[in-house]
Structure formats: structure tokens, C-alpha cells
């Protein structure tokens, strides 16, 4: 092989390596975690500032709406008994109420509550109506919630 050819191969390898590094870095910085309250607490400091989709049920008697604005506060709970307080600025969707599965996109604040940018009611893919008290797999519905992906970055 000629020197020019070796040079071309080396250049391609370098470019490929740089591209790989950029890709890996890009993915690493933009991970979105799907966590419930228990996992959120388990993550500790790591959760502060990270992109998180918090999934769980809205706790009974925990919804507080502030009049005149779309701000809403509530607690999200999960099966293992985790609980986290959420302050959300997004307009709540039609079905938002107690004991419904929700997914909140946002991050953990240093103050210890979850700062929600966007609130969605988990959207079942099944055609049938779930029976009373039937368990809804929140992890599964977390990914199905309409349009959650797409909050335009503020």
C-alpha cells in the first residue's frame, strides 16, 4: 500500500474515533431516567439536575391547586411505599385526579421536591377499560404517554 493510502486510512480512523466520542458523549449527557419515587430517593444526589420521568400514582388528598395559575402540587407514590412531593408548572391534563397514574417530566430540586415541567396522565394502550383497583404497570405506561417526549425546551 502506498503512503497516501495509509494516510487516508489513518485520517478516516481518526475521524471515526472523534465521531464515536461525540456520539458517546452526546448520549451520556442526554439520558432520561424512568424512575418511581423509590428509585428517585435511592438515586440520591444523582437525581438533582438529571432528566427524569417520574412515574407513579397521585396520592389521595394531596392535590393542591394554586388559584389563578396552572401551578399544581401533589404527591406521587409507588407500590414499594415511596413518596415524593411534586411541584408542577405545566397545565394538568383532562384526566388528572387522585389515584391516577401520572408521569411527570422534570428533575429533583436540591430542596427535596420534584420540579415538574410537564405532567401527563399515563395513557393505556389497551382497548379495554381496566377493572376497579386493577394494577397499572406504571413503568410500562411511562413510555406510552402521549407526547411526553416532546416538551419544547423552555
Amino acid at each position, binding site marked *: 500500500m502506498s503512503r497516501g493510502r495509509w494516510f487516508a486510512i489513518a485520517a478516516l480512523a481518526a475521524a471515526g474515533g472523534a465521531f464515536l466520542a*461525540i456520539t458517546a458523549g452526546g448520549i451520556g449527557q442526554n439520558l432520561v431516567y424512568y424512575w418511581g419515587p423509590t428509585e428517585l430517593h435511592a438515586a440520591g444526589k444523582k437525581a438533582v439536575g438529571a432528566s427524569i420521568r417520574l412515574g407513579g400514582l397521585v396520592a389521595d388528598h394531596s392535590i393542591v391547586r394554586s388559584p389563578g395559575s396552572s401551578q399544581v402540587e401533589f404527591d406521587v407514590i409507588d407500590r414499594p411505599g415511596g413518596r415524593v412531593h411534586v411541584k408542577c408548572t405545566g397545565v394538568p391534563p383532562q384526566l388528572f385526579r387522585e389515584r391516577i397514574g401520572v408521569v411527570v417530566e422534570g428533575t429533583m430540586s436540591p430542596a427535596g421536591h420534584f420540579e415538574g415541567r410537564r405532567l401527563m*396522565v399515563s395513557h393505556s394502550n389497551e382497548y379495554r377499560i381496566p377493572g376497579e383497583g386493577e394494577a397499572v404497570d406504571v413503568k410500562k405506561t411511562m413510555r406510552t404517554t402521549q*407526547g411526553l417526549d416532546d416538551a419544547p425546551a423552555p
Partner: protein
Amino acid sequence: MTAAAGRVLILLALLVSSAGAMAGFAAGARGSEAGWRLTRRLAYAFAALMAAANALMVWALLRRDFSVGYVAHVGSRSVPDWVAVVSLWSSLEGSILFWGLVLGVYVTAATRANRSRHPEYMPYAAATWLACGAFFSFLLAGPAQPFATVPHPPADGPGPNPLLQNHVLMIVHPPFLYLGYVGMTIPFGLASAALLRGRLGHDFIRPLRDWLMLPWIFLTCAITLGAWWAYEVLGWGGYWAWDPVENASFLPWLTATAALHSALLTERKGVLKGWTTTLVMATFLLTILGTFMTRSGVFNSVHSFTQSAIGPTILGFLALVLVWSVILLAARIDRFSPEGQLLGAASRDGMFLANNLLFVLFTFTVLVGTVFPLVVEAVQNVQMSVGRPYFDRMAVPIGIALLLLMGVGPALPWGRATPEQLKRALLPPIFGALLAAALGAMLGVRAPWTLVALGFGGYTAQVTLRELWRPVARRRAKGAGLGEALVESPRRSRRRTAAYVVHAGAALALVAIAVSSTMGTSKELQLREGQTATVGAYTLTFLKAEEVREPHRDALVARIGIMKGGRDLGVLTPRMNHYESQREPVGTPAVRTSLFEDLYLSVMNIDPAQGTLGLLAMVNPMVAWIWGAALVMALGGLAALWPGHRAAAAVAARVDPRVPAPSRVAAEG
């Protein structure tokens, strides 16, 4: 009864396609004319059986025959007949059946078109198609079973997913997607045939390119229709989210686009044969990967309506196709002998290579971002996704580079160019670039990337228009009238003209995407009846919340009066639809499209009793231009395919693959 008849049809299709695949491979290996005739007949028989099975299913859907498994799964007495018909592709099993129909149509068309041409390749190609047909017949006979018998038929079924009933685009989007996806089987078969033969002759590149172009057109339409549907139905105000399902349709489009360009180079210069073949096979693999991702429930997103045992079977097929492709490529790629060579980095040749490099990088980026969460979940059992910023950050520079390349590439001459030539080719379009960027800045564009996109778009627009105008001017110089020249030149150089039309559409689409994603306004409003709010230049008044009853759904409708600059623009009615079978309501936004911007209103919550409304209000500039641009691209693609056989055949007869064509001689000096 119906179910049993359907199962018989599927089993026959499995039998016929397997036999056809074997007959085809044997005929190819022996060069037997009789074997090729038999293969053709079996191919037509496969298509006929698939058509019959689909007709039977539509009939069962229309009769609400709930003894057929698929009808019991998606049928309903409460839906109108047109919904019953489109239910054919509304759920998993039916969509695989529909896949079989589309494959049958493609195989028939491609077989008939080439029945007396390319005898050395065609039996192998048809055998590959029929092998794919056999796989899908197997899928229908075993794991999918749309024709399962229901022992105790229910009195009524649940009906198809309301999201499908909610908008007409969802009826046209899936057929286009299948026409794009399934159609990639044809070039895959042709490429496999070339590899099996160990030869890719000059005469065989044209059919390869044409049969790649056809599904590419459908895929382009399908991606756009999907984006349009998301925009008009899902109500979050955007059209693209890098959702795994969107990526699944975009990945094969990227490699197919790369392959179309590299095939042009192969056709013109006799180079990159192995590379073109690789891209074609990768495209098919990505369609199967896409089918796996969307149809197995590995990702749960808006499009994956079901989960099933079909996933592993498709995964097995994907592995099989991958092994087949890798082995064929490894064993035979060395036999493709180049007939020419590439010259000069700063030439059109070099720009074609740059194009391919960018498209491959783009594919890789999207693929890694899409598959990464799956790998992590499989290995570490941690659930996550790769966020949109990753895709945006990677896609924006690549998209902008492609936009510039569409200007620089066609401006450069083939082969080596002198510095003088380069200057003359590359400098004048800078005028168009500055003009477009200045215009954008005047209209308020401040985002630097958007200004760059506008500038590159202007550059490309000037080059594209110049190249479109050049043959017209030449004809006029020969004394033709303007009208005659405008009609004649594109006809004489149809494929060239078509390519520039596609480029014009693509450039417009990229600019429109850049503008719409950076120049919009968005507001979340909480309103009471009679209250007024503003978004952009619009004034919105929440007039009233109403309940409306329709045959197959109830709806809560918000009536919103629109004013702009003191002018009354009427009333928009975004709504929430409640379908009987669905717990959650499905919102339908209202979109008012004008030439430069859309006003987009989407109900987030509504309460007629209290008279309150939560509203997402957006002003999205240039979104409609994206749909228009995609239409231009599709029409350009069609123009390239439009049969102009006399001219093409005459050229093909004159060009002997072993003798360099005049253009090649000229280019290589």
C-alpha cells in the same frame, strides 16, 4: 368457516412461496429458462393467494364476523364501514396480512416488468423475494394467526384503536409506510441476485436504482404523513420527536437515499458497486429492524398498539437476513470489478462520497440513540431513554452540511476541475446565500443555526435553479422559443431535471424545519369563558365549552374566537373526543394554516360545567411548507421513474458496459 378458509389460503401461500423460492434458486444456478417460467408462475400465484386472503379478511370485517380472531380483536358493530375496512391495518396481525398483499403486488410488478430481461439475475432475485414471502406467510400461519377461529364468537368487538379513527391521515399513513417498507424487498432481491451471480453489470444498475426509487418515494410520503398526523392529532404542537417509531421509518430512508446517490455514481462511472449493494441490503435490514421495533412492543410508544409473541420470530428473521447479507457480501464483493475510477476530491465525484459519508453517519447516530436504551435495559435492567437533545445536537450539523452539499455538489464539474473552474462554479451562489440570510434576518430570525440554514438554503436554491435553467437556456440559444424550451428541455433530460426537483424539495424541507423548530411561540393558558389571551400576533377569546354527541364518539369542544391585527378570523374548535371503548379522551387540536404560519390550539383540559379551559396555544411558522416540500420531493421522484422508455432504451442499446460512455471519456479527459 371463514377463518378456516383464510388459514387454507395462508398455508397455500406458504407452500407456493417456498416452492417458488426453491425453483428460483435452482433456475438461477442452472440457468434454466423453464425453471424461470415456473418461478414466475409461482410468484403470481403467491400474489393471488395473498390478495384473496386480504379480500376475505375485509369481507369478514365488513360482515362483523366475530368468529374470525382478528375481527373479534379489532372489529365492532358501532363503527362505520370505512373504519371496518381500514381496521385491516389497524392492529398487528392484520397489518402483517396487509404486508403480504403489498409484497405480492410488488413481486408481481417487478417480475412482470423484467420477465424477459436480465435473465442471468432475475431467477435469483425472484427467489429472494419469494423467500421473504415465505417468511411472512409463515408468520401469518403460525405466530400471528389473523384467521384464528374463535370458538365462542362475542356479540360485539372493541373496535380499532381510537387514535386510528380520529384522523383521516392515519388511514393513508400506514399503506404508504408499507408500500415503502415492503418495497425495499425488491432492491434487496436484485442486490442479492447480483451478489449470487458475482457480477453487477451496467445494464442491471438501472433496474436496481428504479426499484429503489419507487419505495423511496412511498417512504418519503409515509414519513411526512406520519409527521403530519402527529402534528394534527397528538396535540403537543410538533411533528417530530425522535420517537423510536419515527426513527424506525427514518433509518431505512437515510440508507436508501445514500444508496440512490451511490447507485448514480455506479451507473455513471462503474465504481462503488459493492458499496451500493451494501447500502441496499442495509436498507432492507433496517426495514426489518424497524418492523421489529414497532411491531414487537420492545418500545411502547404511540404506534406500538400491541405486544405479542411475533417479536422473537421477526428478530429471528432479522438475524437470518443479516447473516445472509454479510456472508453474500463477504464472499462475493471482490468479484465486482470497477469499470472506472473516482477522480478528485474537489469534484462532483468527491461530493457524492461526502454525501454518502454524511448519510451513513446520520444513520449511525440515529441507530445508536434508538437502540442504546434497549441494550442498557437488557444488560443492566435500568429503564431510560436517550433524550431529544442528543438527536437534535447530532442531526442539526449533519442536516445543515447536507443542505450545503446539495448546493456545492451539483455546482462542481465531474472529475478534476481547475481552480479557475472551481471559482466560477462556487462563488456566484454566495449571492443567493447572502440574500436568503439577509431576508431571514430582516424577518426577525436571530438563531445562528437558523441563519446558517437559510444561507445554505439560498446557496443551494441558486445552484438548483441555475442547473434547472441551464438546458432551457441552451435550447433557446439554438433558436427555440421560450415556451418550447421550457417544455422540451425537461423532457429531454428528464432524470436530471427530476433530481433537481427533488433537491429543491429537500432544501425547502430542511429550511422549513430549521425555521419552524426555532421561530415558534408557545403558551400554556388557563382560561374561563369570556376571557381573552394573546399568543404571537393573535388574540384568543374563549367563547364557550360545549358537549357534542356523534354516532361513535362524544366530544367536549372549546369554541375560541380568533383575532389578528383587529381582523376577525372566525372561530377555532379544538376538542376532546371520548370513544366508547376508551377510558382516556383523545384530544384533537385545531390548526389554522396560513401561508407563513400555523395557529395551533390544543385542549389540555376542559370543563363545560365550570366553564374552564386549559389550552396549549402555539404559533408555528412554515410548518405547512414541510408538507409541500415533501410533495415536491415525491413528485420529483415520480418524474425520474416516469417511463420514457424509448429514449432510455436507445441509450442503453448504444452504451456497451465495457466501453466508456462519452460522458466518462469527457470527464476523465
